[in-house]
């Protein structure tokens, strides 16, 4: 069944309609599936509470390690399963190129802002959905950043990113031993996730709503 919506015009509403239309026709899952992926993504982030300021800003002060533990675990498990899915033809590589300048300058700006805002572009919207006005102000700053990046892309930002050194993958350096490399990589990353000592910074504003016996800060580590 083909749904074709006529969405011409360049006012804001038609452009948002064009966004949906684009997703329907670009062949990366149905509109409903893409929306559902978002719902699950937002649900996981909210339910694990990693959208809270105390999680990422807390990590920058080394007073909370939930975010790196969760990230490393997700990467470790996914890397092994994904490699065999790709071999079976059930998935494809989508590698980003190595552009040293872009990665280092971009990573530095990103790291500074992540520590100060206490969010990343994935967790930010989830905490806005939870009612955090300060993050909404951050998102307005982000939109302005996106505007500046788009307008000065050709003249300034693209040259700043530098030349691509290729879409390199770890396994390329170990020809003939791909399976061993994947397994070692996945297991080591998973072990890092488990080995990072678990420390948590809690938010009294959330905890005070709980009865004493349910407070995670008063419970012995379960």
């Amino acid at each position, binding site marked *: 069944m083909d749904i074709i919506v006529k969405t011409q015009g*360049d006012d804001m509403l038609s452009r948002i309609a064009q*966004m*949906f239309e684009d*997703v329907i026709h*670009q062949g990366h899952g149905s509109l409903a599936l893409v*929306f*559902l*992926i*978002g*719902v*699950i993504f*937002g649900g*996981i*982030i*909210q*339910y694990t509470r990693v959208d809270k*300021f*105390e999680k990422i800003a807390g990590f*920058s002060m080394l*007073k909370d390690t939930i975010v790196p*533990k*969760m990230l490393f675990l*997700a990467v470790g498990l*996914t890397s092994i399963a*994904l490699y065999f899915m790709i071999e079976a*033809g*059930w*998935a494809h590589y*989508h*590698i980003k190129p*190595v*552009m040293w300048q872009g990665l280092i300058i*971009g990573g*530095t*700006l*990103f*790291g500074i*802002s*992540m*520590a*100060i805002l206490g969010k*990343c*572009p*994935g967790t930010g919207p989830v905490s*806005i*959905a939870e009612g955090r006005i300060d993050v909404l*102000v*951050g998102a307005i700053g*982000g*939109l302005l*950043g996106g*505007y500046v990046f788009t307008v000065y892309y*050709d003249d300034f930002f693209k040259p700043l*990113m530098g030349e691509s050194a290729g879409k390199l*993958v770890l396994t390329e350096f170990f020809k003939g031993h791909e399976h061993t490399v994947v397994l070692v990589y996945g297991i080591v*990353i998973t072990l890092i996730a488990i080995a990072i000592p*678990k420390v948590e910074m809690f938010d009294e*504003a959330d905890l005070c*709503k*709980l009865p004493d016996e349910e407070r995670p800060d008063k419970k012995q580590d379960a």
Partner: protein
Amino acid sequence: MSRLPWWMGGILMSLLLLLTFSVFGADRPIGASTYVPYFAGIIFDLDPEKYSYLKEIENPGAWEGVMLFGALFGGFVTSIFITKSFRFSLIPTGWKKYKNNSVVSRLLWSFFSGFIMIIGARLAGGCTSGHFMSGMSQMAISSMIFGGVVLVVVIVTGRLFYNVKEK
């Protein structure tokens, strides 16, 4: 306010990544920063024919835009019914404890960090989702470089920016 443990979050996130990567799902990685310039293009009414960057991100921007609507919805519903953490607030408790009590200071820093966050993510070609999660799962060297730089800079910034000793 209930919450999932970190290992459960990691396992669920891994399953979601695999679903998104698979040809039965979306056959692409999860990303969460391309939608920002995409929406900036719509809000500031930039003509996609005129700006090469908008042309470049047309498809991924739209995809992530729809995913973002889903994430807002999923986050909102979860915060109302499951974590019961929905409330309006202007300043996080942790900011009061380790930085200051000024709402103006928090909002100015939020605006500034939001601005450089998107410039940084777009310069690097990805963020925590696109580089750290999706990229490192594919063993991409670019994502390991990004992940390493971000980890170090986050910890250094935290040391310098916050009064790490409790007030």
